């Protein structure tokens, strides 16, 4: 509980860039620079992140705020991008991914202290775009939320779409190929309000 409070205070300070929060923001930026290890088992959705829900993410009932699932999904997929070589060095070449669309479905509640496992699955890859799906679950497998995002690869100087770099495709293309054999996740390709069953 005390640790939860400390983390909440520090994350709060990070938002306003003050004191310990400033240090934390700099540290997190540094964390981003390091490309993570390439995924090992690509024949299934890839576990990209495990994260404990902290007090600053919850409402007065101790339930995770719905906007945090969007953050959880997009930050976990950032980890996925890092794992395929999307690093600060790559960004420095003037290329990046911009998000075009995000669709989050909220399935079950989670609470402060819960550990959430996020998996990533490639739905489709083409020359300039990648369509990813995330599943956010409790450690017992209960799904709390799903995310679906489309990213466009851009030349950041020209502000125009451009083909995804070969150095990323080296890892991304085999994953997309392997994931093409997986069943399509239940939430994919739904419009808002469409019933699942």
């Amino acid at each position, binding site marked *: 509980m005390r640790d939860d409070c400390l983390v909440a205070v520090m994350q709060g300070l990070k*938002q*306003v*860039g003050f004191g310990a929060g400033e240090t934390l923001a700099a540290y997190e*930026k540094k964390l981003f620079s390091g490309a993570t290890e390439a995924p090992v088992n690509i024949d299934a959705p890839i576990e990209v992140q495990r994260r404990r829900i902290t007090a600053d993410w919850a409402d007065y*009932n101790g339930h995770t705020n*719905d*906007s945090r699932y*969007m*953050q959880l999904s*997009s930050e976990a997929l950032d980890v996925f991008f890092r794992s395929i070589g999307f690093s600060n060095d790559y960004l420095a070449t003037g290329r990046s991914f*911009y*998000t*075009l*669309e*995000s*669709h*989050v*479905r*909220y399935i079950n*509640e989670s609470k402060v202290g819960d550990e959430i496992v996020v998996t990533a699955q490639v739905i*489709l890859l*083409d020359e300039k*775009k990648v*369509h990813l799906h995330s599943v956010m679950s409790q450690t017992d497998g209960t799904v709390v939320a799903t995310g*679906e995002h*489309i990213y466009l690869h851009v030349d*950041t100087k020209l502000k125009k779409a451009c083909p995804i770099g070969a150095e990323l495709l080296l890892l991304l293309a085999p994953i997309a190929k392997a994931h093409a054999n997986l069943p399509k996740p239940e939430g*994919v*390709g*739904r*419009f*808002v*309000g469409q019933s699942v069953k």
Partner: protein
Amino acid sequence: MTEALRQQVNAWQVGEKINAPLDVYRCKVIQEWVDYNDHMTEAAYLTVFGWASDVLFQFIGVDDGYRSAGSSFYTVETHIIYEREAALNDSLKVTTQILDFDAKRLHFNHEMFNVATSQRLSTCEQMLVHVDSTAAKASAIKPSVSLALEAVLASHRSLPTPPEVGRIMKIKRKN
């Protein structure tokens, strides 16, 4: 910090004219919303839309009193389309269109604009369910709120349904 982003509005009163779409929420892009390029991050788009939803809730009478009496709306789905970037200090406005509601559900669409250029930056379609927060179960929207929603919907029915609404996310293939 966050309270500064909140915009207070009065709850709708019977007989009061309702704008189509609702056009209330205004803010400026603040430092904590931007990345190292000074562009607003994805998560911040949802934060802005969240404050616009807060205005809608106040307008239809879902306020702290309503919530502390044990009723609330929970979001079931959120679909955001990012069309243009926003930069630090840009002035933003959000308009809100009620698309539909029934006994327990509420479906609406927000649109975010850059005030200076009038360009649309993003849209956010959401489905919410009304819940009894003590029982953690779906429950009927209270009559006072339904009445307000009926009035908003009556005003918004004349608006065209935005083409993004009900869109399925997919990569369009050229061949």
